[in-house]
């Protein structure tokens, strides 16, 4: 079995992440702090995490620290703000009589290494109206952009990726 070859530390981290995330989801679903709900929830999450404990290893999740949690909370606010700004920008382009769009596909580069970090970056770009991640190939992201302002990789990276990536670098590396 390939799974048996993972180091114990990685397996433990994957297991603990899964346990923590699934128990938080359970609390959100039940919206209750009754002893019975907590007991059953703990049992279900524990069984699930034991059964699927190698599932999160390949995501490359970083060790948990207070700094990372704070930065992640800040990141959510940044993401929300970027989404609001981009919404107004796209709405402006839609209602403008001349429809000032210049759609095209650009390539941006990322310094993020782990799968989960790349996925969060790609999804943040997709959630922001006007830009859409088509694929990730190695350290390059293919982006569809509603209004291409820069075609070179460096300029596009600075305009699209950097606003998210400078936070993600702290969280995931």
């Amino acid at each position: 079995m390939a799974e048996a070859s993972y180091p114990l530390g990685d397996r433990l981290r994957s297991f603990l992440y899964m346990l923590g995330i699934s128990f938080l989801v359970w609390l959100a679903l039940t919206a209750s702090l009754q002893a019975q709900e907590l007991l059953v929830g703990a049992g279900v999450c524990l069984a699930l995490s034991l059964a699927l404990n190698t599932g999160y290893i390949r995501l490359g999740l970083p060790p948990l620290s207070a700094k990372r949690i704070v930065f992640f909370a800040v990141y959510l606010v940044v993401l929300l703000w970027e989404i609001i700004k981009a919404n107004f920008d796209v709405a402006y382009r839609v209602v403008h009589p001349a429809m000032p769009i210049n759609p095209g596909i650009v390539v941006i580069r990322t310094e993020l290494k782990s799968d989960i970090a790349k996925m969060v970056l790609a999804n943040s770009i997709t959630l922001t109206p006007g830009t859409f991640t088509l694929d990730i190939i190695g350290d390059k992201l293919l982006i569809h952009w509603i209004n291409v302002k820069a075609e070179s990789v460096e300029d596009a990276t600075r305009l699209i990726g950097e606003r998210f990536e400078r936070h993600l670098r702290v969280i995931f590396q």
Partner: protein
Amino acid sequence: MRKQISLLLLLIVAAGFALCLAGAPFGAEGARESRRLVKDNVNYGRRYVSKGLDENRCANIVTSVVLNYRGFDTLGEVTILFIAALGLGAVLYGRRAGASPDEAQRPSLILSTGCRLLFPLIMLVGIYIFIHGHLSPGGGFQGGAVIASGFLLICLGCRKKKLNSVALGAAESLSGLAFVLLALIGLAVGGSFLLNFLPTGKVYALFSGGIIPLIYIAIGVKVGSELSGIIDNLSGEVR
């Protein structure tokens, strides 16, 4: 030897059916009987609604009807799903043997990472739905369908994973067996199939409703593993 055993089983089933049907009113006599019931105001719907909460302590009256008053029907429904899955497996088995598997395109990193992240959480939502079937809308069938959708996501998003069909089969058989055993314990303890023999607890608490949540857990596991087996069978041709 095998033929004789199957013949014997068939005879036992036939005798059981004959005994059951012998007691049921048919034809003119049956019509008279049903008119008499209507005259006596045996309105089943009204009876379930007015007495269901007291008898089963099950906050969701639909679950109370589906799993207790009409539990035998539900056993039949689960059996229908089982036979459908079995039929599909039988049809696809012959096709799979000779065909060479097609090479599927590798999924994008966004897709496969997202699948890995979400798969345990989808399982959790499915389990939540069938554990809370006696308190909130949903139940074993819905929860099982959510679980199967998680396996479908794995098949589509991380294509190379092959489902463990032995474990799926075992989960399915054991949960089906659990349903029948719970029903039979009721028969042994109180003299009626699917009798709610456990203490029913307080309404709206998680541990309430007697055997109803236990049966829904069995149904959830059974439906989930059955539908996942169907997905596994259907995806067997593309690898």
